[in-house]
Structure formats: structure tokens, C-alpha cells
């Protein structure tokens, strides 16, 4: 792991433990997420990869009976410290979910939702943000003539790109993606993957995926999770060609999962 330290570290997690009631869902997870890279979290269902992702922007806070210990540092600042403004944190760390979840409102209002949350009211400014965000999510051409139409009329793949546009509209620094293509067809998946490669130029991207080929294709770093533990973490190429841990090897060669 020594070679990782040279790059710019965006998020540090140290000894993160998470309990859902009595269920020990994350066990001493320590890993660093690097700026302007795509970091993928892989592992079988229930291994804690999504849970881990959600600790990074405190989305687990809304789940009742959750206990979290350890440190999560964003640019050196502990996001679980008392007095941290969760609204501001989530502005910095945006999220895209497994199922496309545009709100049942117009395409425009969907993208403008985040900026409005953070107090932007000027119509001209919002217009500009909406256009730039939709362009950034590679969906502007398809939507520019129907910004006032209901977002639920879009196809699944378009909806997910809209959700990405919605996420980048608040100018986050990090984008978390929780299996963003698992509900999409192959062509839409491809589009989203292309988009991710573009996104990492401006943002730090962390993605949970079920699809190992996807992790291998798009990510720079990969972490393998198993029953709440982070088993192995390293450059994607190394993880997939020369895994150090036996379990990682078994998983990526398809012996379980």
C-alpha cells in the first residue's frame, strides 16, 4: 500500500465499526480514497460495501439503531464530530443510488433541487447550473427541449444520468455511487461507465458494484469486502491480476459470491 500514499488522499477512514442493533456490519475498516480517482468496492451481497459507502456521507444516520465508531476524515476533517453540518457535508459528498430515483417533478426541478436546498434562488443562476449539470451528465441533448416535463417520463438509463446531473448540480467534491447500473440495461450501463471516466477529472468517485467486470473496466483502485471486513485494497489492476489474499482470488475468479 506504500505506493498509494504519494497521491492526494481525499477521504481517510480509520477503524470504522458499524452496528445495526446487534449486527456488526462493518469491522475495523481502514482505507484511503484518493482524489480524482475511481475507487470501487466489490464483494458478495451483504458484505458491507454499501454500508461502508453510506458512512462516507452519513446516510446511515437516517437508519434507526445505528452505532458507528472510528474516524472518517474528509480532507482531514472528521465528519462524525459534533457540530458537523450534515447538509454541508452532503453538498460536498453527493450520492447516486442503486435505483434511479428522480423526484416526481420536472427535469429542471430535479436538477435545481440541490442548488435550491443550498439557497440558490436566482433564476438565471439556476438555469445555468441546470444546463451545465445536464451537460456534465451527458444528458443535455436528450432533455434540453423538455426540461419542464416530468422526469419520470425518461427511460431508466436517462433517469440515472439525470440523478447524476442532480448530484453534480451542487458541485460536490466526491460522488458516491451505490450500484448505479445494476437496474439498467447494457447500453445505458455503458453510457454511465463512460460518464464516470469523465467525472473523475473533476470529482473523486467511489462506486459500489456487483459487477466485477465493471470494477475492472472503470476503477483505478479496488477494495474487496467480505462479511463486514475489508479484505484487500489496492490498484485495480493488481487486485484483478495478482490478488494477495486467497479470498480475493477466490472471489474474483468466481469461486463464490
Amino acid at each position, binding site marked *: 500500500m506504500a505506493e498509494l500514499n504519494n497521491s492526494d488522499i481525499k477521504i481517510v477512514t480509520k477503524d470504522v465499526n458499524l452496528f445495526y442493533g446487534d449486527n456488526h456490519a462493518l469491522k475495523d475498516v481502514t482505507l484511503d480514497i484518493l482524489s480524482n480517482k475511481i475507487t470501487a468496492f466489490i464483494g458478495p451481497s451483504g458484505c458491507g460495501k454499501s454500508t461502508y459507502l453510506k458512512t462516507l456521507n452519513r446516510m446511515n444516520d*437516517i437508519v434507526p439503531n445505528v452505532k458507528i465508531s472510528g474516524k472518517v476524515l474528509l480532507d482531514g476533517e472528521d465528519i462524525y464530530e459534533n457540530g458537523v453540518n450534515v447538509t454541508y457535508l452532503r453538498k460536498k459528498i453527493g*450520492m447516486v*443510488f442503486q435505483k434511479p430515483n428522480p423526484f416526481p417533478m420536472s427535469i429542471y426541478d430535479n436538477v435545481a433541487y440541490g442548488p435550491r436546498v443550498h439557497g440558490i434562488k436566482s433564476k438565471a443562476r439556476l438555469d445555468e447550473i441546470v444546463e451545465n449539470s445536464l451537460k456534465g451528465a451527458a444528458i443535455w441533448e436528450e432533455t434540453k427541449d423538455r426540461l419542464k416535463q416530468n422526469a419520470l417520463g425518461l427511460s431508466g438509463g436517462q433517469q440515472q444520468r439525470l440523478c447524476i446531473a442532480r448530484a453534480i448540480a451542487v458541485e460536490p467534491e466526491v460522488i458516491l455511487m451505490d450500484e448505479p447500473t445494476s437496474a439498467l440495461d447494457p447500453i445505458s450501463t455503458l453510457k454511465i461507465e463512460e460518464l464516470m471516466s469523465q467525472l473523475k477529472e473533476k470529482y473523486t468517485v467511489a462506486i459500489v458494484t456487483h459487477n466485477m467486470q465493471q470494477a475492472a473496466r472503470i476503477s483505478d483502485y479496488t477494495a474487496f469486502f467480505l462479511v463486514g471486513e475489508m479484505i484487500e485494497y489496492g490498484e485495480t489492476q493488481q487486485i484483478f491480476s495478482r490478488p494477495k489474499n486467497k479470498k480475493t482470488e477466490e472471489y474474483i475468479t468466481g469461486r463464490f459470491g
Partner: protein
Amino acid sequence: MKALQTNNASNLKIKQHRFVEILLKIFIWVCALLTVSFVVGIIIYILVKGIEGMSWNFISTPAAAYPVENYGILGNIVNTLYLIVITLVIATPIGVGAAIYLTEYAKQGRLTKIIEFTTETLSGIPSIIYGLFGSVFFYSVFKLNYSILAGSLTLAIMILPIIIRTTQESIKTVPIMYREGAMGLGATRWYMIRTVILPCSIEGILTSVILSIGRIVGESAALIFTAGLAYNLPNITGIGDIFKKAMDQGASLTVQLYQYAARGGEEMKYAFSTALVLVIVVLIINVLTKIIARGFKKVK
């Protein structure tokens, strides 16, 4: 095939099953038919009995002081409208607020269970008890005397469970992924409720309001002791008088029906005419509910 043909015992069983099934089917048909015929029967009965006293004069003029011979229900129609508006203005915000609290803010546990149980119990209490309570509490303690306001406050308590329960149910159907989406963008809970949850559950809230209107229009027992028996039109000469009317007595259509029926004799036919008006209003409300519900489904 052969096995089936030769096995007489099982053939017999199949026949028995079929016989039971036909019997059950007939039974269910009779039940359904009875229900429909009750409803249709009542409507026809009221129509026939009510048409006699019905006239344009009956619905367009207020009754003149008894025993002067003018029978009209315009005053009562106005009173009923007052009751509907004031009751809803009081109960809707409280009910929707309570529903939001229960589903979005309160920690799900014993307290919310107790509150939900209480609301449910509240909706099962006979309305005359609300009337009794209202007459003591609002009439005497709050010194509202017999007034439309006292009646509305009593009705407001009565319809709260409808509004709370219906709104709660519709808030619960808002997909969790909308909440996650909003929270993930940094929205505070209240911002999320205002911009996502409430717009998504507006259908349920509207349904609860319409159901409540039905309940208000149909209520009599809770009003006799609280809103009084007056049937005159408000004497409106300025804007202030519109509000002052709330402090006057006012019998709703149902209470007026009760008065006509209680006096009996010649006035019985006016009781039926009032009933006819009520039935038509209730029908309209039902149709309205259906149309609104369908309209929302189309939008979704």
C-alpha cells in the same frame, strides 16, 4: 385418463366440491344483491317521499319562524357550508401536522403506538359523546354558547382521526428512495417534507378532506348540543358579519331534518325533502372523491 375415469370415489368428491361451490356462489350473489338493493331502495324511498315537499322555494329560502308556513332550508345549507369550512380550517392543519410528526419525526416506538391507538379509538367513539363533550367544553368552559364555532370545534376533534390516519397512510407510501435522494442532496428533514413528501401525498390529504366533508355533512348528534337549532340566514351587511355568523347558532341540514322529523305530521315530508338534498350532496361527494383519486392516478 383411465385412472381418472375408473376412480369413482374421487369423481364423487369433485361433484361435491362443485355443488358447494355453486351454493357459495349463489350465497355471495344474494349478499351482493341485497347490499345494492338496500342502497337503491333507500334512495328511491327518499326520492319518492321527498319529492312532495321539494320545490325551488324549499331550497332557495330560509324557514320562517315556526309556525309561520314557509318551509325552506337555505339557512341550513349556509350553516352546513359554514360548518364544513370552519371545521376543515381547524382540523386539516392539525391533522396533517400530527400525521407528519407521527410518520417523520416521532421515534417509532411505544409512544407513537399509543398515539395511533388513541386516534383509532377516537374514531370509534359515538358522535353523541362528542356532542356532550363539546357542549360542556366549548359551550361552558370556552363560553362559546350554542354557536357554529362550538359545533365546528367539536366536529374538528371528531374528524381528526380521519385526517391523521389517511394522511399517515399516504405519507408512508412515498418511496424511501425519494427521501434518500433528498437527504443525499443535503436537504433538511423539513425541506424534504415540504418539497417531496407533501406533494407526493397530496392525494391522500385531499381524500381525507373529502371524507371529512362527508362526515361533517352527515353529522347531527354532535351538533345538536353545540351548534344549536337556528335556521335563519346570516344578516350580512359588511365583511365582519361573515365572520360574526360563526358565533351565531346554526342548525345543519341534518339537524334540521331531525327537527322536521321530530315534529312529525305535516312536516315529515320536509324531513324527507331535506334527506333528499343530503343524499344528493353525499352522492356528489363520493363521485368527487373518485374523480380526484382517478385524476391523480393519471398524473402519476
